[in-house]
C-alpha cells in the first residue's frame, strides 16, 4: 500500500520564552498513513494532536525528524495543491463573503474562472451554504463558518484531507452530513486524516486509529486490533421471567432494565449464543436483538490513557 503521510521520529520542543523551561510537545512520533484510508487521531487535550497536524502541514518546523507527503517534502507547492485542511477553530477573513473567500483560494490553486465558479456553487450547495454565498462571514454562526471551512477544504478536490475536529460547532444533522461526506470521499479513494474528540464518530469512520498522549504514541492499529471482540453476548429481550431464566441458565449472567422497558442480559465467556436463545424461547421470552460483546473505542481510549 502506498504511503500518503510518512512521519518519522518527529519531535517538537517549544521554547516559549527565555528563562522558561522548554516544553516537549511531541516525542519521536513515527506514523504512516496509507493512501485511501480514513485515519483517526485521538488524544486528550494537550496530547500533541494539533502540533502533529501543524507539523504535517508545515505551519511549524520540527525540532527533529521529518514529514513526507506522497513521498515528497511537505513544504512543496506541488504537495500543498493536493491537500485540503479544515482547522479546528475555523476562522477566515470576516470581511469576505464565502464566494470571495473561495475565489481567493481558487486563484491560489490556479483553478480557471469558469471551473472555479461552478465548483464554488457546487461546494456551497453541498455544505448548505448556497443561500449565504454573498453574505459576510462575520455574520455567520460557528456552525456556518465550519461549513464554509469544509467547502474551502474541498475546493481543490484534494487527494489528502486533514480535518481537525471536523464536526466541531455542528448540530446533529451537520455531524451526520460530515460523516456521510467523509464516507463518500473515502469511496472516491481519498485519504483522510482526522482528529476528533467524538470517539463514536472515530469508531464509525476510521479504518485505523492512533492514540497519543503527552506527545507520545501509545497505540496504533486497525479498529479490530485496538478493540478486540470479547467472548460474550448481549441479549435484549422482553416478556421474560428473569427468575425462571436464572434457574435454567447454566452460565453466570448480569441483567438490567433498559430505558424502554426491555431486559438486557449480558453473558461473558460465551462462545455461541444458540443455547441461550433456545432457553429464552422455551420460557416464552421475545428476543429483540443478540449482539456480540465489544468494548467501545471510548473504553479502550480511557484504559490506554489511564495505563500511561
Amino acid at each position, binding site marked *: 500500500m502506498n504511503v500518503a503521510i510518512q512521519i518519522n521520529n518527529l519531535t517538537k520542543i517549544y521554547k516559549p520564552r527565555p528563562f522558561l523551561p522548554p516544553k516537549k510537545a511531541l516525542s519521536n512520533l513515527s506514523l504512516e498513513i496509507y493512501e485511501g484510508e480514513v485515519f483517526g487521531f485521538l488524544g486528550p487535550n494537550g496530547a500533541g494532536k494539533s502540533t502533529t497536524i501543524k507539523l504535517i502541514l508545515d505551519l511549524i518546523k520540527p525540532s527533529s525528524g521529518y514529514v513526507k507527503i506522497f513521498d515528497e517534502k511537505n513544504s512543496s507547492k506541488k504537495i*500543498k495543491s493536493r491537500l485540503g485542511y479544515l482547522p479546528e477553530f475555523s476562522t*477566515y477573513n470576516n470581511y469576505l463573503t464565502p464566494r470571495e473567500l473561495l475565489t481567493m483560494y481558487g*486563484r491560489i490553486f490556479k483553478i480557471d474562472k469558469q471551473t472555479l465558479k461552478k465548483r464554488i456553487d457546487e461546494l456551497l450547495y453541498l455544505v448548505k451554504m448556497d443561500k449565504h454565498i454573498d453574505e459576510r462571514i462575520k455574520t455567520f454562526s460557528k456552525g456556518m463558518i465550519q461549513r464554509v471551512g469544509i467547502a474551502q477544504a474541498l475546493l481543490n478536490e484534494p487527494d489528502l484531507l486533514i480535518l481537525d475536529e471536523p464536526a466541531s460547532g455542528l448540530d446533529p444533522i451537520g455531524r451526520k452530513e460530515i460523516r456521510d461526506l467523509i464516507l463518500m470521499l473515502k469511496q472516491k479513494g481519498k485519504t483522510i486524516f482526522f482528529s476528533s474528540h467524538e470517539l463514536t464518530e472515530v469508531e464509525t469512520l476510521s479504518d485505523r486509529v492512533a492514540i497519543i498522549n503527552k506527545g507520545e504514541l501509545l497505540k496504533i492499529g486497525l479498529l479490530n486490533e485496538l478493540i478486540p471482540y470479547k467472548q460474550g453476548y448481549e441479549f435484549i429481550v422482553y416478556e421474560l421471567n428473569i427468575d425462571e431464566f436464572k434457574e435454567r441458565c447454566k452460565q453466570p449472567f448480569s441483567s438490567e432494565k433498559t430505558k424502554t422497558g426491555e431486559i438486557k442480559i449480558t453473558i461473558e465467556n460465551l462462545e455461541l449464543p444458540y443455547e441461550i436463545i433456545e432457553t429464552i424461547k422455551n420460557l416464552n421470552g421475545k428476543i429483540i436483538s443478540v449482539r456480540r460483546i465489544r468494548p467501545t473505542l471510548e473504553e479502550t481510549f480511557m484504559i490506554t490513557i489511564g495505563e500511561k
Partner: protein
Amino acid sequence: MNTLLAIIITTVRESIRKKQLYVLLIFGILVVILTSLANFFEMNEQTRFIKNISIFIIPIIGVIVATFSSARQLPNEIEDKSIHPLLVKPISRWEYIIGKYLGVLVITWFSMLIISLIFLCFIFLKNIPITATFFQCIILFLIQIAIYISIVLFFSTILSHGANIVLSLLLFVLLHSYGPKLNEIISGSTNILHRIFLKILFWIPPHFDYFNISSAVIYDYPEQSFIILIPFLIYAIIYIAIFLMFAGAIFSNKEL
C-alpha cells in the same frame, strides 16, 4: 501572479470594508473644504495657506492609512489563525508578504490620490496655477509612503499590532528630522571614529526628508523635469527591497 493578485484583492477589499478608511477620507475631505473656504487671508497668503495644508494633509492621511493597514495584517491573522488555512495552500510565505505589501500600497495610494484630487479641484476652482512641482511633490509622497509601508510590514513580523503602530509613527517623525540634525553633529565633531560612526548612522536608515519638496510647491520654485524623480525611485526601491527581504526572511521561519 494569480496568487499575488488574490492576496492584493483581498487586502484591498478588507481595507475598503473597514470603516476606518472612510472616517479618514471624510476627515481629509472636510479639511480640504474648510481650507478652501477660508478667506480671511489676502490672495497670495491664501494660496500659500491652501498649498501648505494640502502638502501637510496628503502625507498624514497616507501615513495613518498605511500604519493602521500594515500593522494589523500579520499579527491579527496569526492571532485569530485565519492565516493557517491560507498558508497550507500552494502559496509561499514570501508571496504572502509581497501580496500584503502591494495590497496596502494600493489602498494607501488610493486614499492619498483621492485627497490630492480633491485639493487639485479646489485649487483649480480658486484659479491658483497648478504647477508640475505640485505633481512631483505628490509623487514623492507616494514613493516615501511606499518605503514606510515596507518598514511597518517588517516590524509586523516581530512586533505586536499596538507596539508596531507606536514605533512606526515615531519612526516616521524621526526619519524626517534626524538627517539634518545628524549632519550638524557630524560637522561639529572632530573625532574621526566618532565621525565615521555617525556617518554610518546617517546613511543606513532611509531619509524621508529627501522626499519633502513642500517648500518648492509653497514658494513656487522653478519647475524641474520629472526625470529628477528617478533617483528617488531607485533609492526607494532599494530600501523597500531590503525591508521586504528582512520581513520575508523572518516570516519564513516564524512558528504559527
